[in-house]
């Protein structure tokens, strides 16, 4: 049984592993920090948030100051999906943002009886209905998840 824990991460309750919802990459022990299974890049924030006013003339420009702020991008090592982007001061340890009680999670889902991939939605309302099933089950691993999948996201 795989439980969608974020947009791109499952916890597989059978194997107790974090896995990528796009390509099935194994990020590690579900009782631990999924980030340990990612690739990380220290992004200069000015590359993402371009200046609106001229940085040659002004100190404050709409671009974050790289001496204050870095963007850590966490990628899936197999499919390259960016599963998290964390804004941190330079040198600050990455945040262990989620630690879950797997026994409790299992108990809850066993009590529920449904398939998490089918019953988890983005919230109440018709437009929040989605398909959070594994993309790797429906497409080839050659282009994991990024071509031809049939999920219903994007409804406005």
């Amino acid at each position, binding site marked *: 049984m795989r*439980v*969608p*824990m*974020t*947009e*791109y991460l499952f*916890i597989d309750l059978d194997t107790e592993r974090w896995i990528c919802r796009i390509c099935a990459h194994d990020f590690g022990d579900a009782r631990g920090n999924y*980030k*340990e299974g990612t690739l*990380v*890049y220290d992004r200069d924030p000015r*590359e*993402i*948030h371009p200046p*609106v*006013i001229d940085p040659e*003339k*002004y*100190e*404050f*420009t709409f671009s*974050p*100051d790289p*001496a*204050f*702020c870095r*963007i850590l*991008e*966490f*990628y899936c*090592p197999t499919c390259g999906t*960016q599963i*998290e*982007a*964390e*804004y*941190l*001061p*330079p*040198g*600050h*340890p*990455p*945040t*262990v943002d989620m630690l879950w009680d797997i026994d409790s*999670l299992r108990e*809850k889902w066993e009590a*529920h009886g449904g398939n*998490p991939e089918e019953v*988890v939605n983005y*919230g*109440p309302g018709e437009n*929040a209905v*989605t398909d959070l099933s594994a993309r790797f089950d429906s497409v080839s691993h050659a*282009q994991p998840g*990024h071509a031809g999948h049939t999920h219903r*996201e*994007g*409804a*406005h």
Partner: protein
Amino acid sequence: MTLTHNQSAPTSGNTDDAQLLTDQEQQWVDAFMDETTLFLGPDPAIMRHHEIMPRSAYEEECIAQGIDPLEIDRIRKRLAGALDEAFEMCESMGAAPGAKWADLSCAVYTAEGDVTYLSNRGVIAFSAVLHHPIRYIMKNWKDEPTVGINEGDGFFHNDSRFGMVHNTDQSMLVPVIRGGIIIAWVGATIHEGENGACEPGGMPSGSETPFDDGLRASPIKIVEKGHLRRDLLTFLQHSTRDPKLMLADIKVKMGAVRRIMDTVDRLIDEVGQETFVASLRVTVEDVEIEVRRRIGELPDGTVTFNQFVDSTLKENILIKFACKITIRGERMIVDLTGTGPEILNRAINSPLASTKSFMAQAILSYWWPDLPRSTGALSPIEVTTEEHSWADAGYDAPVGQSLQASFRGFSALQTAFAKMQFSSPQKYSNVVAPWFNQINDFLWGGTTQNGEQVGNLCADLNGMGGGAKAFRDGEDAVAPLFCAMADIGEQEVMEEEVPFLQLVSKRLVRDNQGFGKFRGGMGYEMIVASRGTPSWGFMTVTSGSKFSSVPGMFGGYGCPVYPLAIVKGINIYDIIQDDPSQFDLSMERVMNEQPFAGGDYQSAHMGLQFDVAKEGELYMIAQGAGGGYGDVLERDPELVVTDLELDRISAQVATDVYGVVWEPGTYVVHAAETAALRAGMRQARIERGTPYKEFVAAFVQDEPPKDLLYFGSWGQDNDEELIATHWGGLEPERVSGKLAELPLIMVPDRRVLKIARLEERVRELEQKYGETVVHKS
């Protein structure tokens, strides 16, 4: 200050608080304190507790007579109708700009002050803070011979140390009395703005002591047996810059409360006093029970979300707002340990009650918006803080711009909830990325074209960009985090009352987005200039000019940062009159092209203390964007080119961030090239990314960069150990230790530091050129 037996909530670990007295010793202390109390300040036994009160004997008696859920539902609906009616009265008649745009609330409370029901519109944070003043009144004034509580009385307060969202808000709290017993309270509270602080508008970015924060009204009886007390009213009017506002809105609140009271009177006549009391009490309890049940639906675990705030509003620093939320069954613990210390001469500190009030805002507006707005919503959630952190400021810390910390209390809960609830099969709200959380707005003050003294703020505060949802883009300039149905006002109406024009109003700024599979809602820019006034000035009260205020969610990016841009030494009205083609204003054009000869073009962070604005000088800011959701490379390319065509994003962002290839001129997406570009970008990520452990080994440092003025824990392994920057002299030094061990933190005046640097430079130059100058002190 009152000392009370075993009630001082020793969350700080202060050993004095932990000393328990014997009953005999406590009696002696109580007797001594009763006889010798200097004055009745904020009471920790009240202020450190957000839980609903236990049932009173009378409430037990009323409930014991039987509960009919349908009748209670009818009572709730009647009260909701009355509160909404009162809300609209305040909105329609209120003199405060905030009132006109829904920054207010009306409520019914139990006898002990728990909010039973709040108006559907307005600021929900009030549901978790106004029990404090009522408990203070009940504890201290009910049996006080010189005060007392009688039918027709009304109490006023604004000081957040006694329980208020922040000091700009002013209350009217009125008891419901039957047979000599207080059985409930009703109230109206409005963001009034001007409060006599060191700067106009009520939210001073420049306050350096609590006395700079302005009016410090503890709960006082402003209305006695139906009559507004002229002596106290005069004192309040005399204490602020806008006496007309004070008079008008006290009367508006009295009228609104009277309208609620009419419904309450009729309800009590219809259903009986006992049923009415039981319904109030049961509603509060029902909400608490339901919140516990919903916590139990969430997965057990811990979600951590740390925020870094880059400004004291006078200088750039980096201060942490730490938050770990742990769920165990039906328990939820919100732990802010690791949050930076209070800064004793800066305005950004927040009282604990104000910080908690915005946690309730997140819960009732973004987690479970279907629940009645009641004190019961936050009540079962345990909140751990360290007293004298900037989110739990002590009595002596200025709190003039406490929203800097308290809004982070909102973001902590709102942001973490996407992760907390994602896997839950039962949701009561959508998965949403972080909402924008800053006060990107102009405050203003001076003499109007009508000759009146005023101080207040623009409605653009309410134009915050919404966070992206998991299934659609965030909405542009949709609503402030504290009020879902607020208005950004009619600019032309405002210009009749205040002497400045918004020369650019509500124009979206290109690339002002939180990028993602779905992007955050955008913010707009504002350009203002005073006109036709003998004296006028503007302020800004915002952080987030160096470090993004909100991140994205699940791979999406956060908002950019926001500068303040000013052009001094020009009169834009003369320029436009001479050459109408110059009325082509945007922050980008004005600052980059510098088209006005003689202008002094400046950019700065968004903590601007009151700045005298001469006629026609330009002040420019932009409202903020919500966070993006999901991987940018999953964004529908058609949505990308639509934003590009509308100039919402630049070509650089469309290409480098979103990886889209299009036909210039027609904006037709080249699907194959886009797929190829994106595949290449994914491959590039894999190639440049470093395995986590290797990355941590190279990136993580033992402490912050040397030049960063940092406050808070570093990492999360030992949140009790804080790093801070201390100025023993003019040079900053880094200190560390537990909060109680740190020295008091006060930041030197930046002008003093600048003068010291300039004097040092003068000495260097004198030595270099051999000039002998006698410097007399």
